[in-house]
């Protein structure tokens, strides 16, 4: 039972402008309040004109009085009342009598309500429902279901509660309208009731509520999340914490996470804190501290030092490498705010050897090299560059001076420095060569530059290639063609973007093939690069590619980019297809897809597009298998609807059905008749391509084919193989393994997808950074991003590695972080 201090925040919440919060506070006070202040505040609301709040407050007052043993208004004269039951049976039925009935009048009230339920005034129904919930029988359920006529009013909550108590299955027919209610409290209560008869579907509805764009719905979801299995709920809470700013929702998440203290939760909060913008990081830090306190209280850590310090050390020891690998993807696709936060974190942690090595690695990725450029100068052990002298000839000046000069070069400057510029274009550093070629592209007209640009296009330096591309595109585009397929698959976004735009004008099919190959890659950074180029393609040509990728994508940052493209090209057909997408890859992605659906629907509404859809058999069938994430399984898009023989009846309360009901309501459309199902064949847009264009396309594609095949059969298959559509291991399994990690450090036995330390023999050395290693009866294709000690075939080694994939050759691809010869 709460004391006065515990009541204070609840009483403060009574003044909130969030209705969900006010009702929750009233319900909470009903359970715990004891003071006169609480009674007074609740009585004021009970006497107010808001029927909904008035009922809940009156109910709370009666409960508190009963708990305190006070005499309520209906019990003002218990002795007189007990002396004359007959009199009380004729007395008017009032709210107070129903909420706080005297023992002797219960049966009389039951008889009167059952005899003529329709004669009960509408305003008394909630109280009567509460009364029947306490004293009624399952046979009263039909009487109560007749009062579920207005799902948009919170006053049916006690009716739902009563039916749930007496006969939960009686709600089945009413769940669709209750779950589609515009009132978060009604929706929340319906989900809670659904839990009794279909827990899986209830979870799906809960997660849909948590993904909502409406604060009160998320708040309702967070409040009822307590009733669901924590491991699943946790994934969704962590997913919404990335962006959530509402203090009440954050508080609800904090309470839930801290009530289920787990070290994994704290470590994953630390993952988030370092990648979100500063204000959000501050909010998450507060939650992290609360979770730490509860971890310490639960005795999950040794009490030698403060829990948060211990967890931060643990994070650095065990999660930093994995975090950094993920950070590279985040940098590639993150919006500006998040990128700044990441850069700031990297700056703060420059002195950490792993971070310093990571920053060096960023130079190799064109999408991240700008961050490397900004931070490299601050790396430990970097020499200070000597200042330049004005009198020095350009070729003797330091690189920044050369770059400045090349950037400022005008026609007069060109005449003076042309020879030097060409020299730099051949022999300068990567940045200087790029700047020199750029200057040549805009200032030179001489033919002798073209072979130089062609040669630069073949270099493995994206900036140089880009500058050469621009030069050739402007002056001799035909010279780009032999290299085009290779450029389309380039890992440098700017170069690839340019190549895509060029290719789209000449050979759209080859361009799409190139991007398709990248999107199928197992390598997340390659997928991230591909996604950034998708926008440049005609949307109708890549829509199915995009949806397919979204379905299997497991990285939320990449999934978000895919969704941004879908949202920017809104149509009813895309919304329908998005409805069929089911992601089992990660809770974060599922959450993003659910939000994407809602956003797309809103955009279509704002564009004035008719979004009414009648649920047909093809919508109903997948709904039957609704996952925990509430997504409909994606049917094979190529399977004609007619081919689906006798689909079993869908659950009327499935997420898909309810989602459509909500949409139809929001679009101001009456719900369709269930008896008139339609086969909603999605209109397929078949573009009319002239024969000559097809013929030209075939010829160009044949010309590109050998190069495409070469690109499609990479020497290092570790990163380029098509991903499997299914996930062999569940998230829970992986989490369980992570917990083992934290308790034991890096284990000495092989585990896929987790760091391990194995001792074995070098079977063969492929190059400076790659070797084949035999250990534990398995062959590993090991690659390292940094330098390895000189290795010899047959040499015994202890290797710290992250095995991450089974290769078709039977070997296991592994990322090596350390290799030590065994003496």
């Amino acid at each position, binding site marked *: 039972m709460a004391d006065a201090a515990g009541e204070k925040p609840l009483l403060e919440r009574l003044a909130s402008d969030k209705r969900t919060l006010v009702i929750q506070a009233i319900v909470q006070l009903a359970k715990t309040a004891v003071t006169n202040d609480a009674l007074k505040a609740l009585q004021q609301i009970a006497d107010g004109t808001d029927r909904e709040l008035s009922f809940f407050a009156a109910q709370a007052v009666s409960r508190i009085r009963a708990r305190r043993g006070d005499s309520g208004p209906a019990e003002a004269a218990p002795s007189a009342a007990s002396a004359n039951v007959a009199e009380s049976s004729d007395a008017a039925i009032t709210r107070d009598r129903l909420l706080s009935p005297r023992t002797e009048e219960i049966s009389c009230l039951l008889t009167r309500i059952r005899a003529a339920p329709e004669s009960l005034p509408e305003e008394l129904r909630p109280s009567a429902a509460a009364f029947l919930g306490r004293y009624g029988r399952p046979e009263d359920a039909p009487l109560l279901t007749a009062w579920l006529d207005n799902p948009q009013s919170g006053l049916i909550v006690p009716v739902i509660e009563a039916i749930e108590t007496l006969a939960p299955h009686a709600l089945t027919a009413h769940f669709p309208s209750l779950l589609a209610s515009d009132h978060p409290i009604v929706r929340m209560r319906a989900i809670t009731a659904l839990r009794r008869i279909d827990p899986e579907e209830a979870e799906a509805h809960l997660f849909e509520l948590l993904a909502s764009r409406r604060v009160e719905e998320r708040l309702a979801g967070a409040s009822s999340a307590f009733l669901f299995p924590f491991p699943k709920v946790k994934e969704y809470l962590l997913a919404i914490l990335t962006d959530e700013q509402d203090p009440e929702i954050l508080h609800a998440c904090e309470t839930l996470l801290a009530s289920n203290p787990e070290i994994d939760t704290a470590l994953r909060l630390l993952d988030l804190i370092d990648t979100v913008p500063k204000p959000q990081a501050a909010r998450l830090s507060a939650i992290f501290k609360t979770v730490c306190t509860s971890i310490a209280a639960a005795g999950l850590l040794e009490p030698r030092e403060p829990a948060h310090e211990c967890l931060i050390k643990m994070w650095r020891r065990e999660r930093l490498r994995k975090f950094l690998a993920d950070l590279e993807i985040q940098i590639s696709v993150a919006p500006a705010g998040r990128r700044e936060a990441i850069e700031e974190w990297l700056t703060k942690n420059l002195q950490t050897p792993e971070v310093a090595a990571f920053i060096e690695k960023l130079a190799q990725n064109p999408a991240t090299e700008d961050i490397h450029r900004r931070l490299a100068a601050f790396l430990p052990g970097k020499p200070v560059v000597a200042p330049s002298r004005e009198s020095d000839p350009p070729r003797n000046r330091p690189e920044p001076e050369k770059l400045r000069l090349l950037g400022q070069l005008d026609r007069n400057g060109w005449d003076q420095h042309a020879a030097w510029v060409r020299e730099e274009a051949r022999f300068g550093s990567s940045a200087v060569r790029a700047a020199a070629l750029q200057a040549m592209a805009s200032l030179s007209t001489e033919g002798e530059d073209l072979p130089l640009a062609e040669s630069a296009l073949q270099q493995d330096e994206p900036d140089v290639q880009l500058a050469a591309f621009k030069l050739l595109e402007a002056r001799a585009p035909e010279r780009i063609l032999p290299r085009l397929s290779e450029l389309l698959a380039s890992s440098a976004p700017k170069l690839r973007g340019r190549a895509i735009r060029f290719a789209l004008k000449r050979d759209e099919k080859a361009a799409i093939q190139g991007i398709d190959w990248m999107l199928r890659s197992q390598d997340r950074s390659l997928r991230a690069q591909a996604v950034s180029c998708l926008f440049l393609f005609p949307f109708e040509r890549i829509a199915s590619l995009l949806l397919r990728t979204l379905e299997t994508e497991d990285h939320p940052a990449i999934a978000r980019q895919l969704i941004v493209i879908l949202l*920017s*090209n809104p149509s009813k057909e895309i919304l329908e297809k998005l409805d069929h997408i089911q992601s089992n890859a990660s809770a974060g992605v599922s959450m993003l897809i659910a939000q994407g659906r809602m956003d797309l629907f809103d955009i279509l509404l704002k564009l004035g597009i008719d979004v009414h859809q009648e649920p047909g058999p093809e919508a109903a069938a997948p709904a039957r298998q609704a996952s925990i994430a509430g997504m409909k399984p994606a049917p094979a898009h190529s399977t004609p609807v007619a081919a689906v023989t006798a689909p079993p009846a869908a659950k009327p309360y499935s997420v898909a059905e309810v989602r459509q009901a909500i949409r139809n309501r929001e679009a101001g459309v009456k719900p369709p008749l269930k008896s008139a199902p339609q086969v909603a064949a999605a209109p397929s847009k078949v573009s009319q391509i002239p024969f000559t264009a097809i013929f030209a396309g075939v010829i160009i594609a044949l010309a590109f084919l050998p190069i495409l095949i070469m690109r499609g059969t990479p020497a290092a298959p570790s990163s380029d193989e098509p991903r499997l559509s299914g996930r062999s291991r569940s998230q829970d399994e992986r989490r369980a393994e992570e917990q083992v990690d934290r308790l034991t450090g890096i284990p000495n036995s092989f585990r896929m997808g987790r760091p391990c330390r194995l001792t074995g023999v070098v079977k063969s050395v492929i190059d400076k950074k790659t070797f084949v290693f035999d250990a534990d009866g398995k062959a590993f294709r090991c690659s390292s991003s940094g330098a390895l000690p000189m290795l010899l075939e047959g040499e015994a080694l202890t290797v710290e590695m992250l095995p991450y994939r089974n290769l078709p050759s039977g070997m296991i691809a592994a990322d090596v972080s350390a290799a030590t010869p065994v003496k």
Partner: protein
Amino acid sequence: MPYLGGGNRMTNSSECRMHRDGSWLIVTPAGYLNDQAGAKLNILLGSANFDGIRVVLFDFGETLLVNSQGIACLLDNCDALVDTRNLKVAFCRMPALVKEAFSLVGLLELVSAFGTEQEARSALGHG
């Protein structure tokens, strides 16, 4: 709805306006910047007189959405303005989704992005 500026239902229409202010050319695409609006933008910029212009500012304050064709059109125009005409190109007042899309496609690396026109003028110099 966090992404679209106005709360009212809009139509699928779009328009594009342009005005000159000293050495600044202010372009205001309004509504849904798709292929049709992109074509209008091409015509508008194709007919513009760039004499004395130093900065081209795209004000997206009235833009609700930019689709793939709209982005392709913007990229082409920005490339031409930066590479061919040596002009500074700036964007301001981008709605959240539009900014996210521009960021994804790398368009923001090509131009300077600002919250408002005033911020752009403070940073790039009044004109």
